[in-house]
């Protein structure tokens, strides 16, 4: 099956397979055992939050999902299909959007070019004609509209974070991976980012896997997984997120 055949537009009839299903994933950096038997499921249209203190393997897990790191132990099923053997660019074209920790804006491309690069994830579905940025992006992040010709590397941290999310959205992903989108961002922009993510889910119906330390944002999710020492140690609906769990797993 080619990658393009596996990809459908975001609004589709709900299929039976969950968007993302990880089972028995183990990952090693050399000798050290970073991820231990991780099982995790993200259902369609669901927003799942991954919590845990620094260094427990949250970012490593996301990198395994997008394909920057890969492990032979365990299965990562995306849209009902194992993607362990896929390279990162193929996973992106299959519909996984990635907003990394540290934002990773390409510094010497303009903001507009950074956004247009996001279209690459569409693969053959990319518009052949003049490439334009959809109005939704500017509705979500109005600040970007005024700085399209600025270099990506010259933006402030908060602006880069918004650009990073917008760039991932350009590829119309079905599953969005967000790695600490509010880390080191000033409080007013944190709220903007939270609202934008909520609107993205409402308007496009995509699934989101969020790594977050910010309690207010964590509560927006439908479901949570808590990690400790590379393994999942607790999970449940965020409605029942007790103070004990918060105390134990969030660095607040």
């Amino acid at each position, binding site marked *: 099956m080619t990658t393009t055949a596996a990809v459908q537009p975001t609004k589709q009839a709900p299929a039976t397979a969950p968007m993302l299903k990880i089972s028995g994933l183990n990952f090693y950096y050399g000798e050290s055992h970073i991820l231990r038997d991780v099982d995790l499921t993200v259902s369609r249209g669901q927003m799942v939050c991954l919590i845990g203190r620094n260094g427990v393997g949250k970012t490593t897990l996301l990198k395994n999902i*997008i*394909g*920057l790191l890969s492990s032979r132990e365990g299965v990562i099923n995306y849209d009902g299909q194992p993607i362990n053997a896929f*390279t*990162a*660019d193929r996973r*992106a*074209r299959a519909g996984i959007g*990635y907003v*990394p920790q540290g934002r*990773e804006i*390409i*510094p*010497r*491309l303009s903001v507009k*070019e950074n956004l*247009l*690069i*996001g279209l*690459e*994830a*569409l*693969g053959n579905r990319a518009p052949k004609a003049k490439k334009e940025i959809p109005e939704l992006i500017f509705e979500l992040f109005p600040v970007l509209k005024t700085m399209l010709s600025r270099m990506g*590397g010259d933006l402030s941290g908060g602006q880069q974070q918004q650009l990073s999310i917008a*760039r*991932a959205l350009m*590829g119309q992903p079905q599953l969005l991976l967000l790695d600490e989108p509010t880390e080191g961002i000033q409080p007013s922009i944190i709220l903007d980012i939270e609202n934008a993510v909520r609107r993205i889910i409402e308007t496009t119906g995509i699934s989101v896997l969020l790594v977050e330390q910010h309690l207010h944002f964590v509560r927006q999710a439908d479901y949570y997984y808590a990690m400790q020492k590379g393994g999942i140690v607790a999970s449940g609906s965020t409605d029942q997120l007790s103070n004990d769990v918060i105390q134990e797993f969030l660095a607040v």
Partner: protein
Amino acid sequence: MLDGLINGIFNGISIGAVLLIVALGLAIVFGLMGVINLAHGELMMLGAYTTYVVQNGFKSFGDGAQDFYILAALPLSFLVAALVGLALERSVIRLLYGRPLETLLATWGVSLILQQFVRSVSWAMTFGLLVVCLLLFGGRAALSKLANLGPRQKLANFVVLVLSAGIGVTLGRSLNGNDALAKPWFSARNVDVTAPSWLQDSISVTDTLSFPAARLFIIALTIICLVGTFWFLNKSAWGLRIRAVTQNRDMSACLGIPTKRVDALTFALGSGLAGIAGCAVTLLGSVGPNLGSNYIVDAFMVVVVGGVGKLVGSIVAALIIGIVSYILGSGTLVLMLPSSEAIQPLIDTATFFATTSMAKVLVFALIIAFLQVKPAGLFPQKGRSVEV
């Protein structure tokens, strides 16, 4: 006096243009991708030999056709060098990204292989190599399609390699018995490419001022290549991908850019530009297996002085080095100094360096001194985008 000045600037620019067209491909391969490709000069050499072959082909059509061989030679040189570069990237360089020392050694080896290849290539050798390639790749493809060998795949591949190499070498050796087939195409001696007649003239502006057409042609060709490269990198879809991948490979992959294809394309583009440079330098001198090694140092010099990763830097560096070399080497400096007793030692020094080879020594010394002051070159990369 004015004529002399214009003449000096023209000659300087024309040396600069040769430097620049030679360095342009390297500015992409080394500057953007960070690959130290010591076989870059040999890709130029292949371009030059392609020009020679094309010219011989046009000769057979008669004198009229002879004048236009260069129009066919330019794209063909690009194509040949780009294809060899592509093969080089896929077979050697791809395995060595991020390992500059190993790349340096491996590409040096490749440059020696290519030099020897043009010395000894003959029909017998070509047939032998073709048979090896066909058997090797055909055999591997057939094996992986027909039989699922699993862990024994490696062993099977090795057996195929040994068998096809054996058959190919035997065939090559037996064909070598035939004198016609064993005769080398080019041999180790230099061959000459005759410039088209319209490039052998000079264009006279005044009685004392005339520009050789070949030099003007190289300047024009350099400008066309520069504009083309700028357009491709800054305006085309693949150019955008290239710029993204060279700045942040991992994130580019996460956005869905096929990074391996981008690497191969970038390398092929740089190699193809080397081929065009090879075609251009056939207008200036004869073509031999060592042609590449004469230019490779100059090319690296231009890229390093300009600032690695900056095309604009390469342009400025090539022009400055060209003009300085000419002014020193031609003795223009001696003429410009007023003759007086007071500065006689200075005049003597200038006279001492007023030959091409001594001028080169002085230029190198100046570059070394310059790099002490600005180690990152004329246009260093600024800010957080700097990468080692």
